[in-house]
């Protein structure tokens, strides 16, 4: 296998990290709506925690994207 093809396959595999981020953000969003439905008066604090949570969950997908970009445009 030539290195270029291997790099392309590697880039595609790196994007699979999106799976974890999708699941994580999905769970966080679901629980946030549950929490706001239960306690609408605390929605400000819940949204703050939610924003941090999705930002951290999303980081893995971003690392995958960066790795695949590095492989594509090296």
């Amino acid at each position, binding site marked *: 296998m030539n290195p270029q093809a291997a790099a392309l396959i590697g880039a595609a595999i790196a994007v699979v990290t999106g799976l974890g981020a999708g699941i994580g953000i999905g769970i966080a969003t679901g629980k946030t709506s549950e929490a706001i439905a239960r306690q609408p008066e605390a929605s400000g604090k819940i949204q703050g925690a939610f924003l941090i949570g999705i*930002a951290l969950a*999303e980081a893995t997908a*971003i690392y995958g*994207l960066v790795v695949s970009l590095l492989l594509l445009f090296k």
Partner: protein
Amino acid sequence: MVEAGAPEAMSISERITEAISIKTVFTIRAFGLAIPISDTILASWIIMAVLFLASWLLTRRLKEIPTRAQTLVEGLVGFINDFAEENLGHHGKHFAAFLGTIFIFLIAANLAPLFTPVGGFGYEPPFIIRPLTRDINITAGFAVCVIVTVFVSGLVIKGPAGFAKSLVSPMAFMLPFKLMEYIIKPVSLALRLFGNILGAFIIMQLIEAAMPVVLPPILAMYFDLFDGLIQAVVFAFLSTVYVAEAIE
């Protein structure tokens, strides 16, 4: 840019590589150094100038009974002050200006591409604004500013002894992890903003290459407008959380 005589000569991957590449606009020669100025740096200077002018013009003649523009500015400043105070307590007023600057600049930077003149019907727009946070150097600069603020504010507010104590709390073996945080935090801040904006930008380029009409304006609402706003909010919010963690 399609050259005459060779229509559609660029493949999609060439187009995207061209779009995300950062070009050097001009070079400043000073003190025996040649400093290349890229298009993202130039765009950030223009945004700085616009924000500076806007803040000077809007706060030049403040009145007891606010005009319409003054009400808007007061609302924005009040929002930032409240946000800082809510998260940082009585130290909030020291950090409100810094966090507000990051917030407003990143919103301006992420929404700047919306001000690209519209081309079409044989009219080439004179310039194309691409999101400047697609350049990791811009986001890394902000991340370094934030982590220096976190470090210095922790050192000043807790005092050297308190700061050293916070590094080994609750247990001494936490020290390497606490030190590692000073690397991981800025790297993840910079990569998050950069990756999100670049990813959305590449997806928009792909969509425009595949279907130039109808679809792009609809999806741009999400990928350009919503994503840019959310990422600016997330960056400012995480910076606030890091500062709050350092000073409490």
